[in-house]
């Protein structure tokens, strides 16, 4: 569908599928200007304020930090550093409640501010950025901790590096701010339009893009006017176009805005860079300008505090890490009929139960809703298959099918219906006449699918390790058998070696034994030559012979054979001394066995 703009240059616009009209409620907070906030007593800086790995803290408890100083370094490529947003002392590095739908705590650096706002030494401004390599500028953007400020908080430096395979022709700047209630981007465009344009200029150079389209919903005439003025003053006016787009939720979605402005669709599971487009939020553009032209890290942002349960809704310029309670107090506190406190907008935000949570780089709005504004929908009714959700879906999905499969926990089928193209905008749930919490089903299915994938990876890894262990045990067993075999063979070979009468001289003990044996044998031989019979039973006295005979008779009576009886005394004599040696022999063996056991 074609929409035209009467007052300004006509540009063909497209329409994305679906979308809904919701009361924008922006008048609550878009009057006035952005107010500064006093420095809070404590700053709570989560180590993860971006998509990717948490940053690694490089300060210790008790360290003094200055405003703008790096307190946590990025760990990995998709990561961003964290900077102190005021000067003070680190009093704790511990788990604190963070803005997250789970309400869980995560590692944070807590700074007790000194109120002096002493700046750390900032990196040199790169005013001559046009002569610089894009990689240098990307490094600066990364070092200043800039992340996407539209809500997803993806590290900007990563998004600005689409790679050589994806030449970028168009930069899309997202000033749509389609969520109801939120006005911080509106105020930013009104008050800092020059900075946004500077940021655009840097981004155009960085990406090598031809043109820039700045999309702003037409319910923000002030912002459009201010941006047009800034564009007219800028030296890149022939490359930049300010486009007023029809107000329709969720035109501020990345893929939806690209569709509206260019008519092109981002492929399923793909990113805009695949069609030569990079999309950035207006706040991100301003933050890039600060980082490059002033060397200032991202330590402040505009936050809308609004909703009818807040006494004085307004926009505040907030230091990242300021507790939500401080902002609410500055806006006159909460009214009694508060139903819920939401971080983000009413459509995509999440409820928070603690006012202790800090404002992060991604937090654009604190919303206090009354019972009238956000009535309890009551229990969900059965789906009547009206199909309104499919009409409203801006991603052209089939929300009803997704719902059935998510409900029956059929995670494979739900992915066949492109669950991961769902942007969780909430249009389907908003139009659902049965009040089914559809988005919650999709979120459940998404996180569950990711968890399953992780578990699968872990299972494969465990299996690999288990097979490796089994193989190792088998190999060790084979080696042991082989060793035993060689030992046995060596034992077999020994008698042959004995026949040669060449005693092995390797072991001195064995050699000594062998020598003693030989001496004994020689002595025996000599005695035999002299005719001496070694048996000593011949010259026994009569009494002794009688004793022997009696003993033999006794043995016979017991039942021992003649030969055994004869061998008896001798055997007894030899057995006696051999016993201790046996126990001696088992002694060390037992010791080694017990050691092995241990």
């Amino acid at each position, binding site marked *: 569908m074609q929409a035209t703009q009467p007052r300004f240059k006509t540009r063909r616009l497209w329409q994305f599928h679906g979308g809904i009209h919701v009361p924008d409620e922006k008048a609550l907070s878009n009057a006035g200007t952005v107010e500064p906030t006093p420095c809070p007593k404590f700053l709570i800086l989560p180590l993860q304020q971006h998509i990717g790995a948490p940053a690694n803290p490089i300060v210790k408890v008790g360290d003094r930090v200055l405003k703008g100083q790096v307190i946590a370094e990025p760990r990995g490529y998709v990561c961003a550093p964290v900077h102190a947003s005021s000067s003070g002392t680190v009093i704790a590095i511990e788990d604190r409640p963070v803005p997250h739908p789970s309400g869980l705590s995560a590692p944070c650096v807590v700074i007790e501010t000194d109120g002096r706002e002493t700046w750390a030494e900032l990196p040199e401004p790169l005013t001559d950025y046009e002569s610089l390599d894009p990689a240098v500028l990307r490094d600066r953007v990364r070092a200043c901790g800039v992340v996407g400020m539209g809500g997803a908080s993806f590290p900007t430096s990563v998004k600005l590096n689409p790679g050589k395979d994806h030449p970028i022709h168009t930069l899309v700047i997202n000033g749509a701010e389609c969520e109801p209630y939120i006005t911080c981007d509106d105020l930013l465009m009104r008050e800092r339009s020059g900075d946004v344009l500077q940021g655009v200029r840097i981004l155009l150079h960085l990406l090598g893009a031809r043109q820039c389209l700045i999309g702003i919903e037409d319910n923000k005439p002030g912002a459009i006017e201010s941006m047009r003025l800034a564009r007219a003053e800028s030296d890149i006016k022939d490359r930049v176009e300010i486009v007023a787009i029809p107000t329709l939720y969720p035109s501020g979605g990345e893929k939806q805005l690209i569709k509206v402005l260019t008519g092109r669709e981002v492929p399923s599971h793909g990113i805009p860079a695949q069609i030569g487009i990079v999309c950035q939020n207006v706040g991100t553009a301003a933050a890039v300008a600060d980082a490059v032209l002033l060397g200032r890290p991202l330590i402040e942002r505009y936050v809308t505090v609004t909703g009818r349960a807040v006494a004085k809704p307004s926009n505040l310029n907030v230091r990242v890490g300021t507790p939500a309670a401080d902002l609410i107090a500055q806006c006159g506190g909460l009214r009694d009929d508060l139903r819920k406190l939401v971080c983000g907008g009413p459509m995509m935000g999440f409820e928070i139960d603690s006012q202790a949570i800090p404002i992060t780089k991604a937090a654009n709005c604190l919303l206090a809703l009354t019972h009238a504004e956000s009535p309890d929908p009551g*229990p969900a009714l059965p789906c009547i298959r009206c199909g309104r959700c499919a009409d409203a879906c801006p991603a052209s999905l089939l929300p009803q099918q997704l719902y059935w499969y998510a409900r029956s926990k059929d995670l494979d089928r739900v992915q066949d219906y492109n669950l991961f193209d769902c942007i969780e905008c909430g249009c389907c749930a908003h139009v659902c006449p049965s009040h089914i*919490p559809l988005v919650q*089903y999709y979120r459940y299915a998404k996180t569950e699918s990711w968890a399953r994938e992780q578990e699968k990876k872990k*299972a*494969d890894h465990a299996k690999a*390790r*288990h097979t490796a262990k089994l193989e190792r045990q088998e190999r060790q067993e084979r080696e042991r058998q082989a060793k035993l075999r060689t030992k046995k063979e060596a034992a077999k070979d020994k008698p042959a070696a004995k026949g040669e009468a060449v005693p092995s001289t390797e072991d001195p003990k064995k050699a000594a034994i062998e020598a003693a044996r030989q001496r004994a044998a020689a002595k025996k031989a000599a005695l035999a030559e002299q005719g001496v019979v070694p048996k000593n039973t011949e010259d026994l006295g009569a009494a002794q012979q009688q004793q022997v005979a009696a003993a033999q008779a006794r043995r016979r009576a017991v039942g021992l054979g003649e030969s055994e009886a004869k061998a008896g005394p001798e055997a007894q004599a030899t057995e006696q001394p051999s016993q201790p040696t046996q126990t001696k022999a088992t002694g060390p063996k037992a010791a080694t066995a017990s050691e092995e056991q241990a």
Partner: protein
Amino acid sequence: MITAVAAIAALAAVIGALLGYTSLRFHIEGDPIADQVEAVLPQTQCAQCGYPGCRPYAEAVAKDDEAINKCVPGGEAVMLALADLLGRDPSEAGGIAEKPKSVAVIDEKECIGCTLCLQSCPVDAIMGAAKQLHGIIASECTGCELCLKPCPVECIHMRPIETTVRTWKWPFPANQSPEVPAQAQQAA
């Protein structure tokens, strides 16, 4: 009559020969069903199913109609996946007592360095040597609990893995509508 018998006999002979040939020519090594079952199992090698590991249990499920609800670490998800794979009714198997996911931890004060747990670990997640303190690599531990029994001083404990912001999952929506499940099946 004779021609008919002869024709049928000839057909039987030809088809029999063909079947015999194909069974030799396209013979599949191993047990493909057991492989698929094993792919579903969580590979903790915990033996809580009564078999000495995941592979033996997979073979038993594939061959001997063993119950599909014996995998404790896999829980309901694995049971449903097995039911789906084998075309069995998941309800007949009954529920599974699910345990929270845990990792083993060695009490450093009590470990005597006997190496018995080292030998029992199916995935080599325990490091150590005789008379040296042993340590468990938490990222490799599958939580199978096989190291608990051999320990002579009972210094190994299971510690549940805590949910963090990164591992947290959206819960299944609580306020269920009183719908008939037949609709879901119809949709499927």
